């Protein structure tokens, strides 16, 4: 028997409850903060240093629609493929009431089922060249419908020395304006990632491959040639160092910020 939208949405609400419990166990510190990082190209450092806010991405083609794309602190290497400047902040539990685990096949299957109840956009998604625009609108509509604060998903761009595709997790944090109902109407800078500080500068340079999904590291493979396979899993944890840099920069006053130099 075919499931109705009402059936599917009921299952999605149950999944959101389960996702929230799992997220709490895995990504929320005992003190209630979720620590996150974002890496971006250096040309935007000046702007960041002015307002210390992270950008809400609105680009069609991003995995889970509009929002702030970040990684949890323990998966920081996977974010370094996106730029040299590493910024850290935290999310309060009050901004993480509803989390959706789209890293798990159950979450993905429910989402795929749900979008089939959007006949207009689903048609554009499946039969036109505008798929990435349709995807963006569908994902935003989904997040709006279930007032999702954050979606957890698996990395879908790769580099073997930085990204562990099966075990790393990436987040997209919603920052929809409550005044605007139409999905997709977001703008500017996030209010939900708090007290952002510069904490790391990456020394590696990346180039996107022709397929667009692999970010090749251009320095490390040649500097460390012959020293064994460089893999993301073999890298040391940076949690303590990043936390130390962050704390120092919160109280630095007019002094220049300290930062971790992330070697290739």
């Amino acid at each position, binding site marked *: 028997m075919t499931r*109705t939208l009402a059936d599917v949405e009921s299952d999605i609400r149950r999944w959101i409850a389960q996702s929230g419990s799992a997220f709490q166990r895995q990504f929320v510190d005992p003190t209630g903060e979720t620590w996150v990082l974002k890496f971006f190209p250096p040309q935007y450092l000046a702007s960041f240093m002015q307002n210390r*806010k992270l950008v809400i991405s609105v680009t069609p083609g*991003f995995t889970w629609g509009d929002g702030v794309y970040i990684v949890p602190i323990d998966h920081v290497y996977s974010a370094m493929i996106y730029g040299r400047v590493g910024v850290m902040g935290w999310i309060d539990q009050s901004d993480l009431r509803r989390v959706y685990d789209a890293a798990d096949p159950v979450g993905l299957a429910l989402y795929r089922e749900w979008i089939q109840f959007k006949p*207009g956009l689903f048609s*554009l998604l499946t039969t036109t060249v505008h798929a990435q625009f*349709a995807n963006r609108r569908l994902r935003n509509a989904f997040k709006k419908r279930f007032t999702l604060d954050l979606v957890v998903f698996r990395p879908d761009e790769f580099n073997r020395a930085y990204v562990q595709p099966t075990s790393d997790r990436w987040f997209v944090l919603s920052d929809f304006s409550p005044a605007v*109902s139409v999905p997709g109407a977001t*703008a500017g800078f996030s209010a939900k990632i708090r007290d952002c500080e510069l904490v790391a500068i990456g020394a590696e340079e990346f180039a996107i491959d022709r397929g667009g999904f692999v970010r090749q590291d251009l320095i490390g493979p040649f500097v460390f040639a012959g020293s064994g396979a460089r893999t993301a899993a073999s890298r040391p944890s940076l949690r303590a160092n990043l936390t130390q840099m962050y704390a120092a920069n919160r109280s630095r006053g007019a002094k220049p910020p300290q930062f971790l130099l992330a070697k290739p």
Partner: protein
Amino acid sequence: MIDDLFAELTLQAIDRMIAENATGQSDHALARVAARLTPDRESGLFDPQLMLRLQSAYFSLGVDDLAELSSAVHEWVLEHVAAAVGGWTPQMLATVVTLYFLYPESTLRSAVVGLLLQVEHQAEARERRDEPRTVSIVESIARDDGIDSASRTGALRELGDLALDYVDVFPAEAARSLAAVVSAAPDDQLRTHFLDWADRLGGEAGELVRRAIV
């Protein structure tokens, strides 16, 4: 041609940044433009005069000028600039309706329908209209002598499907649009199509759709 140089350069820049941003390289730059032109809680960069200037230039463009801009730019404008419009004039709404017919088979149509439903929803408290805001699109399709009956039904079904996408966000407005679409259809095909959708939706949404078109 866009007379206002600021508006022309801004729209050109947005077009270029969206095109370049497939890899996220222009994310920050796009956000700064959005923060300047859209009320933004965080940055303090919003300049209402710039927004009004862009709005004024954009909504006075004729169809040929609108066709010079990409669908991605139009979507951006509808989402970011139009979201801040206080009162919608008939001329502005006519521009929005024009956009619906500019790029068939694009998500711009979804953006247009969503915006019209939102305008109707926001106006509901102030003024009760007998007709949904999408009726201009319905009438244009119904009056188009250049298409045959099957194409007309197809065009109306597409509009209805796009309205159905918003039944969870703007339920009353989406239902009114569906009623207008079914009323304009030459036969019962569309009623059957949307009754089938009412069954598939189930729950309150399904009941709402059924009541609107029976």
